[in-house]
């Protein structure tokens, strides 16, 4: 009897909890439907001016305040944003879900991943007809129109002017300078395996040094190279000029980083980019194959190329707009010039060799 008593007590608890769980899930499920009433299915078949379009983007994607609302007001299309992770995670998730994509438009595929995305058939061709499309074509990948360039930038070494002034050392200029004894223990770069700017710098050295790139990295290592996990780790913890007060005055960052180091009350930045060490990075958008709302995706892609979005790209995503008709922010125009001759590696070659290069790099640098 003791057992049965405690059993029926337990059973009641169980029942109550089960009901609560079921109710909770039902409620939550209802709730989750709200933002997209009717949604995608109508959008695909009907005129573009309706439904919901979902953009799948990397962590760094964002638009200026209210711009997506403006888009909705103008087109009647609701926009949802999903952001699964960094550029690598984004691309791999897009590849894995290509038959049932997470959304309609992808943004944030860069030129180091472009080939993988196109080869896997993740995106379908679309030729935008907006004025900036001609500018975007300057950065096109391949000739299939699957990917449309939205912005670009240079991944370059940055130096802390203050540190070099203070220590009476001349700033380095070229990649080869970095293996010189006077720059021993001064350089920090993010890991090429775990960080996309880190990988971009690996490509810089491959473009610059050719087959000798592994020897170059060995020389860097012998000269006291520090490898940090990611960009923020390198820039804020190890770099002396990033605000975190680290020990090393040379870091891998972007050509666009210096304007943000103008001190309070100061007139010029305390850091600068070494424009002979840059890799040109281009970020693309593409309409996803099997998208539920391909028309909406196309309209949103056009919107990304519109002047109003393009001119905000420096402030929201720290990249340069592809459009040549919009003005750069004043401090960018002054302090963030792009490299005249950045290094580039053919995206097809990158796709073929990525794994091997990273393995070799790990062996040489990490051990």
């Amino acid at each position, binding site marked *: 009897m003791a057992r049965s008593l405690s059993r029926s007590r337990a059973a009641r608890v169980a029942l109550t909890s089960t009901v609560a769980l079921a109710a909770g899930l039902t409620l939550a499920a209802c709730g989750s439907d709200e933002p997209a009433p009717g949604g995608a299915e109508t959008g695909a078949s009907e005129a573009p001016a309706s439904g919901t379009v979902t953009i799948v983007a990397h962590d760094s994607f964002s638009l200026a305040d209210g711009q997506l609302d403006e888009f909705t007001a103008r087109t009647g299309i609701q926009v949802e*944003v999903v952001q699964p992770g960094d550029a690598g995670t984004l691309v791999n998730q897009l590849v894995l879900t290509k038959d049932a994509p997470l959304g309609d438009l992808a943004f944030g595929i860069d030129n180091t991943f472009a080939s993988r995305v196109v080869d896997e058939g993740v995106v379908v061709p679309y030729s935008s007809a907006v004025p900036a499309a001609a500018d975007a074509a300057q950065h096109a990948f391949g000739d299939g129109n699957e990917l449309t360039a939205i912005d670009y930038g240079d991944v370059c070494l940055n130096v802390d002017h203050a540190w070099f002034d203070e220590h009476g050392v001349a700033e380095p200029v070229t990649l080869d300078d970095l293996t010189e004894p006077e720059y021993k223990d001064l350089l920090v770069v993010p890991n090429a395996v775990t960080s996309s700017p880190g990988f971009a710098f690996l490509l810089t050295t491959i473009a610059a040094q050719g087959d000798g790139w592994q020897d170059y990295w060995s020389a860097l290592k012998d000269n006291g190279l520090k490898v*940090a996990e990611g960009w923020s780790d390198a820039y804020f913890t190890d770099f002396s000029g990033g605000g975190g007060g680290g020990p090393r005055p040379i870091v891998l960052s972007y050509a666009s980083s210096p304007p943000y180091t103008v001190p309070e009350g100061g007139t010029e930045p305390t850091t600068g980019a070494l424009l002979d060490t840059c890799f040109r990075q281009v970020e693309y958008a593409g309409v996803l194959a099997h998208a539920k709302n391909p028309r909406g995706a196309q309209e949103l892609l056009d919107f990304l190329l519109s002047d109003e979005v393009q001119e905000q790209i420096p402030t929201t995503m720290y990249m340069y707009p592809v459009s040549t008709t919009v003005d750069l922010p004043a401090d960018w125009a002054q302090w963030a010039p792009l490299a005249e001759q950045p290094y580039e590696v053919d995206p097809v070659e990158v796709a073929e060799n990525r794994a091997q290069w990273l393995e070799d790099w790990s062996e040489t640098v990490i051990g």
Partner: protein
Amino acid sequence: MTLTTTRRAPTAPPEGTTVLAPGRRRAHGRGLRTLLWALAVAVPLAFLAVFFAWPVVVMLAKGFVVDGRLDLSGFADVFARPRTWRIVGLTLAQAGLATALSVLLGVPGAYVLHRRSFRGRAAVRALVTVPFVLPTVVVGVAFRSLLVEGGPLGFLHLDGTFAAIVAALVFFNYAVVVRGVGGLWERLDPRAEQAARALGASPWRAFRTVTLPALAPAIASSASLTFLFCATAFGTVLVLGGLQFGTIETEIWVQTTQFLDLRAAAVLSVVQLVVVAGVLTVAGRARTGRERALALGGERQGERPLTLRRTPGTAPGDGHALALGAAAVTAAVVVLLAVPLVNLVVRSLRVGDRWGLDHYAALSDEPAGVTVSVWTAALTSLRVAALATGIALVVGGLVALVLSRRPRRPAARRALSTMDAVVMLPLGVSAVTVGFGFLLSMHEPFGLHVDLRTSPLLVPIAQAVVAVPLVVRGVLPVLRAIDPRLREVAATLGAGEGRVLGTVDWPLVARPVGLAMGLAFAASLGEFGATSFLARPDAPTLPVVIFRLIGRPGPDSYGTALAASVVLAMLTAGVVAVCERLRSARGGLAVGGEW
């Protein structure tokens, strides 16, 4: 192990005990009862099957099934790489060492923080829990900016070393041991140890032969949790040591998110599963058989104030030196835990070359590229965590309820112990595997016409999956320790079933539920596990906003990210403190969980 006490041990009555109860209670239909029990088993198992096992299986299948055929050649390939053996060794070394250290330091900590009273104890207890939730980018800042050459602790030359990783893992998991062991210790009847002392045992001997064996189940339980957390840590390992100290988990992460080599990732996931299952089995053995045989007292029974001076009138050799030793160790550990946290606060107050609250003022801004203010994100975090905690409490509570039964049939008992191990697995399986598995399995799952992958509901569900084991480990020991005779007495005296529940069970379970709730909430706030790989919709949580802020150039974003991290830490400490209150508001017979 035998504990002699005058208090009734709240163990289950001998098999076959019957107690007369009012006849009207017999009216319950047996069929209904069976149905409800079946539901209590089925609901949590279904939840874990759908939101844990299924995604993992789908992800593994992606690696092992090629063109519709099972292809296990990946095992040979992966094991042929010398690197594989190295990372398996490194995983065991890191997790093993960090677990051993956490236990060695955590047991004295449990004594001081749960067996002794002193001013500020609640604050210290909350403080040691904070590291548990800090996002890894922030731990990177908090730790590395101390250790980096030229940093305050740069002279130790620990930056990027194996020792730094182990230290950080201990930093994360110290609280797991303190709370786990302390929860049991504070209700251990002190008279057993006193009796041993009266019979001539030295304080050390009495501790070693009486107290320590009594604590063994809690130590085993905390150690296995710590091991699971350490063996599946990847952010910490990557930030502090980089890939040269890579573990199975970091390798799965690299293979999946960077190389898309799902075959290698699947092999490594299986290896991880084997390691984890082995540890769980060992820990399970150490736990069972002891869990119910304890004599427990009221919470405050054995608690004494912590004094630096020997109590006047007591003889030397009364264990005062032992207590002081424990206090010294704990004080040292708490200072070490506090250093990175203080470093974080100090850095958040640094504005250019001066000090100020500017970064805190910026918390209400909506910076370009982040889209929401830190406060909005904090609210989102709280809302998501509350939902996740709710789900985890229901699922974990049901699991604990089922596991607390002691069926007579050996087969049923074995089934329960299997279930006990299975519900722990969400802590031991790679978050990457689960996260990517969600992606592959949650599009129109089971033919339902919903895309759960991008549903806002998936985030709290993924968090709940990780929080369920925490709830189970917290609530189960108490449910097992409730003396059924208490209920029977109440029933005999005429209490209705609801009243028995309200007056006997609830007061006993309320506090451990509170504690478990606190940890589940903290785990959710800290975004553990698979959550970080979900395609999250547009309402970013606090850790996501911190991550975005610290991904932007400029000292201001950096400062705001640090201030936001301090907010996250305070939020956690606050939640834990509130849950502690929920515990101590209930007095009397209440007993704590393993947590």
